[in-house]
């Protein structure tokens, strides 16, 4: 390297500094691009992602009954709600809730409540689908793991869970069948 080239530039950097920095930057980009496929391989694979939607026929579910279907490996609660349950869910003052959501925002048709049956605390399946199950203090669902209580609309009312039970994206294909996902 000639003496001239090694001279410091205005900002105090030398050619050598530049070489160190650019080699370091290229090295970092290289390591990053090498690591990317490996990290990405851990994310859900194509076959897992392909199971993203499921269609459900609602016609056999009578008023007051609930079924659990599997979507993306998760239980989805589908409940045919009674008039009393709808009324109970709608008269609750939204302002008093932990996760403020009105019942109207959580359903497409008021009699059909569709939500992911996974407690928003640490992922257990709450009880309340069967007639014999405990339904918690708010006539909905009760998570036995850490004691979260959900109401008739699947909204968190008591216990450690931070959020309401998630409503998945779904649409009515016909009057009595839905597609989840």
């Amino acid at each position, binding site marked *: 390297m000639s003496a001239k080239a090694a001279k410091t530039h205005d900002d105090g950097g030398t050619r050598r500094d530049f070489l160190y920095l650019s080699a370091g930057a290229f090295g970092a980009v290289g390591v990053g691009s090498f690591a990317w496929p490996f*990290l990405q391989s*851990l*994310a*859900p*694979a194509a076959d*897992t992602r392909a199971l993203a939607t499921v269609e459900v026929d609602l016609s056999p579910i009578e008023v007051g009954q609930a079924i*659990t279907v*599997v979507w*993306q*490996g*998760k*239980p989805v609660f589908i409940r045919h709600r009674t008039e009393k349950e709808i009324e109970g869910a709608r008269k609750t003052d939204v302002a*008093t809730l932990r996760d403020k959501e009105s019942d109207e925002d959580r359903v497409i048709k008021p009699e059909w409540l569709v939500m992911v049956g996974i407690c928003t*605390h*640490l*992922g*257990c*399946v*709450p*009880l309340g689908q069967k007639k014999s199950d405990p339904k918690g*203090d*708010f006539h909905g669902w009760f*998570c*036995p*793991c*850490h*004691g979260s*209580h959900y109401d008739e609309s699947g909204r968190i*009312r*008591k*216990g*450690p*869970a*931070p959020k309401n039970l998630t409503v998945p994206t779904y649409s009515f294909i016909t009057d009595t069948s839905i597609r989840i996902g």
Partner: protein
Amino acid sequence: MASGKRAEFDNKVVGWIDERLPVFTLMQKEYGVFPTPRNFNYFWNFGAIAMTMLILMIVTGIVLAMHYTPHTGEAFNSVERIMRDVNWGWMIRYMHMNGASFFFIAVYIHICRGMYYGSYKKPRELLWILGVLIFLLMMATAFMGYVLPWGQMSYWGATVITGFFSAIPVIGEDIQTWLLGGFTVDNATLNRFFSLHYLLPFLIVGVVFLHIWALHVSGSNNPTGIEPQSNKDPLPFHPFYTTKDTFGLLVFLLFYVAITFWAPNVLGHPDNYIEANPMVTPAHIVPEWYFLPFYAILRAVTFGVNIYVAAGIGLMALAMLPVYCAQTAFKVPVIYNDKDKKNFNWNKFFVLFGLGGAIFMLGFLCQYELADGSKALALPFGQLIFATAKLGGVLAMFGSIALLFVLPWLDTHPVKSANFRPMFKIALLVLLVDFIVLGLVGMKPAAGLWIPLGQIATAYYMSFFLIILPFLNKFEKALPVPKSINEAVLAKKKAK
């Protein structure tokens, strides 16, 4: 290590090898004549015991992996096949299953020994940190191993533990999906856990090597906590401690063998003999016993961080700041001292600390739910939560382990052994009881009086590290420490 004059070996083959690769010289130096304090008690056995358990886990694990199938459809049955059909499979699996428990027993006693005798203090800080790292790696390995039989507790334990990551704000759920390789715990999760469960023990072996290397640089601590000063203080490792370690190991293994053969499932959970069912959560999810205290800390945080909780913690930290900084080079005005800078003004401290505590309680009560679901107290912004209870619990749990990493800098008292620190000794023994109480709380459903009990026990755990230790640094007067290990040994002999 190859430097210096090598010993002559009688066996010519040994001598030939040693000249080219001095493994025999190394063993002779590090385990033959290695100077070891002469006053070890039986608590000093547990390092060697833990090492033996690690080897036993690797040997049994390698054989089990030859019969196990990491697939959600087959895993449970393949474990049952090991139990029923594979020759001696039942014994090897029970050895592995209970070996994990006894590995943790050994390591917990080893950690207690280190804390009681101040083994984490200078010059052994890094040795201690490597030890805590081994403990963390063990917890990860044990957790993933417990998932492999694909029973109900395996599945739901995995769901709950990986659910911790969803507590991270904004990106938490994406991280969880990435870790699981799917939207729930499933085949992808089982496969990667099997891979990692096989890998991590060898990482542990690597860190154990560093841990022992660091130990052989600083030398062992001992019950007096004073360093060897003359050649009257140490003994050669062989035959004195090879014998003592072997005896202690055999006694420990007697207990291990007794449990393995006579009560192999006493430390497990019957629900794990039911195959995993993603649609049904068991009525009561409990982790393995060695995680229970940390699980209790996780569940103790039933409240999120609102402005009152944040302000309360902030004030208490502010009150403690001069106490922390008294140990460091940072110059903080010691606001509690009298004008002559001699006496600590407790009144000033208590006012500030008490104020912080009271404000914290207000924030807690704003979120405390009464039987009807309403809150015990209504204050402006009381419901505005910056960090949810879930995130708070996860942070408290990881924090409780993180505190162990920084223990050498929280306890800077010059005297190591609790034998000469009466106040530290009491505080530490209370911590031990507290840890057992946390374990009991972790076992019970989160309801009734178990919740406040878990919260009080968690508060003591945190206070021990963050409040009691810094104060003891400043105020505890130690008992007279013997001049040398040899003198202490002779004095003890005389007293008999």
